[in-house]
């Protein structure tokens, strides 16, 4: 049994490394971390001022994270979630409390290297107190078969004078089916930034719904999505900013690059219900700019290499 757990941990670490993570983080006592494979917690490290409470469930793990008031966590927390078998379901319910005058950065790698039919549901509830910050990056590594259904849903509140940044990246391997949802309220002088970067291939399906609600005076939101599509993939991006408070400011910026037979939709929705608020948007769907590609070809890159550089930079 112990050997099996060690093997599973080693395989998770291998996939974590493939997705760009540094495995040394999990043996560093100063780096807060958690490793979850399926519904098993394979490792956990807390640091002063940070509480991590995982509770295994039938299909996953419920995780409560608390950053105590006045604590700024020095090193970014490393999270590794994944499913190693070819089939399975993983449901992670994560609730993060960043108390007042506290802050943390976190990088989560979600790995499904052998996926043929995997369902991965992430439910995040984020509560950020006053004058605090939380920067969360989620990086996905899927296999080449496209058999993953990923459903991350984040809801939360950014307290007065606080900052929440969330970045979702899926560039390696097939996407499969992706259904992202954000719904975040921003209080007085709070700031929200949401970034989604996805590279869809073959028959992948991408659905992104991002919503920022500017409820406090001077609240700000930036919602930025970059989706590159090829093959027969499809994406729909719905970006919403509702501004109901004076001096609140929001901006939506969506770009979808379509190649081959791929199709894309962009729906920016901006709502203002206060005369002193302002929300702007820009959305573009199109093919790769031939001038960009030919410029790089004129530097000696092949067309394929040039496309890779342009797309890689766009999703960086």
């Amino acid at each position: 049994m112990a050997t099996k757990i060690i093997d599973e941990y080693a395989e998770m670490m291998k996939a974590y490394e493939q997705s760009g993570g540094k495995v040394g983080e999990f043996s560093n006592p100063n780096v807060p971390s958690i490793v979850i494979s399926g519904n098993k917690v394979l490792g956990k490290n807390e640091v002063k001022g940070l509480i991590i409470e995982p509770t295994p469930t039938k299909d996953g793990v419920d995780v409560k994270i608390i950053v105590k008031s006045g604590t700024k966590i020095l090193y970014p927390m490393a999270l590794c979630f994944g499913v190693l078998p070819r089939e399975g379901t993983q449901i992670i319910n994560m609730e993060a409390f960043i108390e007042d005058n506290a802050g943390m950065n976190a990088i989560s790698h979600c790995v499904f290297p052998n996926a043929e039919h995997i369902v991965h549901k992430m439910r995040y509830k984020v509560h950020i107190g006053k004058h605090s910050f939380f920067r969360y990056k989620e990086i996905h590594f899927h296999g080449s078969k496209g058999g993953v259904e990923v459903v991350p849903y984040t809801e939360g509140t950014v307290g007065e004078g606080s900052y929440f940044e969330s970045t979702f990246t899926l560039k390696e391997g097939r996407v499969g089916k992706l259904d992202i949802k954000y719904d975040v309220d921003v209080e007085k002088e709070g700031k929200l930034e949401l970034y989604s970067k996805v590279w869809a291939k073959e028959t992948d399906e991408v659905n992104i719904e991002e919503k920022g609600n500017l409820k406090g005076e001077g609240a700000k939101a930036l919602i930025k999505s970059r989706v590159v599509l090829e093959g027969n993939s499809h994406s729909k991006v719905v970006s919403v900013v509702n501004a109901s408070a004076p001096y609140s400011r929001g901006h939506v910026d969506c770009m979808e690059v379509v190649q081959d037979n791929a199709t894309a939709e962009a729906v920016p929705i901006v709502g203002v219900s206060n005369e002193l608020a302002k929300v702007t948007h820009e959305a573009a769907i199109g093919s790769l700019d031939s001038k960009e590609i030919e410029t790089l070809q004129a530097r000696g890159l092949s067309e394929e290499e040039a496309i890779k550089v342009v797309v890689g930079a766009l999703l960086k």
Partner: protein
Amino acid sequence: MNKILRIENLHLKKGGKYIIKDFNIEIEQNLISVILGVNGAGKSSLAYVIMGLSGYKPDKGKIFFKGNDITDWSVTDRAKAGMTLAWQTPANFEGLTVREYLEIGMKKKSLFAVKEALEKVALDPVLYMNRIVDKSLSGGERKRIELAAVYAMHPDLVILDEPDSGIDILSLENIKKLILDFKKNGSTVLLITHRDEVAEIGDKAFLMCSGKIINEGTPSEISEFFKDECNSCNHKGEPEKTLANNEGSE
């Protein structure tokens, strides 16, 4: 002297009209050759045809580079053979840093070479190396980065399409110095411009009008002719009249 580029009987039709017709030129190695002409003379189209860009495949004629017929070569193959182009209005690249952009064309990536190229165009490497090559740069900054990128490549032939446009007067001297540095480093320069004061740094000049070379000589001769005949031209699109006047005045 060796001819690095030779163009024979080139014709390019766009929208049913010839914008380059019966175009012939020979460019000598390691010299600065200037193509001077008013806006709309077909100068940028010529640059695109030489570089092999999509939509600019000649209808007739041949292009030879270092003795090879490159008329049907791809942009990449032409660049690999040693030529490149600095666009008049360069493209933007979201997410790509200035350093990464410069390194793309370098045979051997080197931080020193990146810094040197930026200094050549009077941009502080500390301030610019990690900037993104996107719309956050002003037109003039982007233009200088384009020139730095082609400088870092050390190409055998560099086509500079209006390198002076969008550049302020003070920076113009830097740009002229950079063009001379290309030559010093062994590159042949094909400088395309509509400003006679820029043309004067060349070794040889050609006057282009309505898709044709109508005159050639020293830069001062061609600049003089350009100032006298082209700036006040009232018969654009009819280069034969210019030639007739010129021949008559001699």
